């Protein structure tokens, strides 16, 4: 009897385990799935709210360009990419910031911005697609959300945002505002981690090849940034991103590893020049 009570917890564990698996495992899994998706949906909503706040601050710093033709073009390229390779539950927005600075930003929830200065520096559509894909990858991988550690006690990022930002009270809203500031500061001053940027670069290259664009063009764009990094024009970019050499080598490695050396994609140079001629 002594022995039995010693191992009692063990028996209970095994018996309940077996019973639990007997008792409609399929149904249990289905329920878990629904719960996950319901949670997921709430989280996505919070993520969009969060992203709106951050975007509003980006637009508070830089004015938006209301040139409808160019905006439509950027939108078409961006939406074309996101419709195929982005998160299916999001609607992505693509805006142009009216500034000479060279940079691009992604706020959580699908808000993506590229500056006029960056567009002027680009020489073809593959480069534009590459930059948009890089920002898209930040949204897809939830880099900002992860870096701000918006996670709950169970350590999963996905169930965290709703808990942190879901409150309707004033203090919850103030917390949201503070988090927006942190994210904005991250975009403008601190930057994401080296690994996240490297990851976004690789994902961008992968998206380009999936869509039939020339991946080498994206590397050329990175190279063309070099002379502007010391000047004021790309100061924010150089402050928030790893060095061009690091990014270039990281991508070269990716190209070699995946045998993309001889992949020749489209560049759509003429179309690009026509569409952004008004800038």
């Amino acid at each position, binding site marked *: 009897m002594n*022995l*039995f009570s010693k*191992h009692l917890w*063990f028996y209970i564990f*095994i018996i309940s*385990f*077996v019973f639990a*698996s007997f008792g409609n*495992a*399929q149904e249990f899994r289905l329920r878990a799935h629904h719960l996950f998706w319901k949670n997921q949906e709430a989280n*996505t909503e919070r993520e*969009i*709210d969060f992203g*709106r706040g951050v975007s*509003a*601050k980006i*637009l*508070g*710093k830089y*004015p*938006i360009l209301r040139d409808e033709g160019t*905006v*439509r073009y950027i*939108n*078409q*390229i*961006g*939406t*074309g*990419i996101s*419709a*195929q*390779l982005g998160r*299916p*539950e*999001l609607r*992505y*927005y693509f*805006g142009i910031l009216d500034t000479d600075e060279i940079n691009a930003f992604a706020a959580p929830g699908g*808000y993506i911005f590229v500056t006029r200065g960056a567009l002027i520096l680009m020489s073809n559509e593959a480069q534009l697609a590459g930059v948009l894909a890089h920002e898209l990858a930040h949204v897809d991988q939830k880099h900002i959300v992860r870096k701000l550690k918006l996670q709950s006690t169970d350590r999963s990022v996905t169930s965290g945002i709703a808990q942190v930002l879901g409150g*309707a009270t004033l203090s919850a*809203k*103030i917390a949201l*505002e*503070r988090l927006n*500031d942190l994210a*904005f500061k991250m975009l403008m001053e601190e930057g994401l981690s080296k690994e996240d940027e490297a990851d976004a670069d690789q994902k961008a290259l*992968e*998206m380009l*090849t*999936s*869509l*039939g664009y020339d991946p080498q063009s994206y590397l050329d764009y990175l190279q063309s940034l070099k002379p502007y990094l010391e000047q004021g024009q790309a100061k924010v970019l150089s402050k928030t991103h790893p060095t061009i050499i690091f990014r270039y080598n990281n991508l070269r490695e990716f190209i070699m*590893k995946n*045998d993309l050396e*001889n*992949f020749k994609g489209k560049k*759509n140079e*003429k*179309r690009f020049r026509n569409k952004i001629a008004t800038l």
Partner: protein
Amino acid sequence: MEALHQTQLNSFMLGKIKSVLIFSTLFLSTMVLADGGLAKEETRYIKGLGAVLREQPSFQSKKLTKLSRGTKVLTVETKGIWYKVQVGENQGWILRGQITNFPVKIKRFVFGQKIRLNSSSGRRIRLRTFTAVVGVKGLVDNKGEKISPYQTDYVALEWLESQPSDEENSVRFLTLSE
């Protein structure tokens, strides 16, 4: 006599525990495997413009066939940015960015802010009003201090959000060569 009895009982119980453990593990693993939980083969769907099925995981490799958007495939193996998939009788490699876990027809926009604004649940509306107020006045906390040092422009944001976006057309535009 007492001690002997105890050890006999002990080994007997241990044997029981072992057998129960082994059987339950076996039972569970078969259940999980049969359900496809741990199995590598998974159903995925072709998204985007469709995908070219290739003989080998390389762009230089021979093209077997073109899979259209929404085609159901079974993943067999992965290598770098490539997935080996089974489609009907064909087996070949496609880029991993071209498949998704969910049927592509079902596109679930969580977004739908405009629709939610008209719904009876007022939470969304409150949030919108809140953000608008923040945009106009700047958020002020209990002590009357401005919380955020940064400027916001919700008018520009709403202009951006009002820009039309047509996924199908955009995808078509992307495939057009100049």
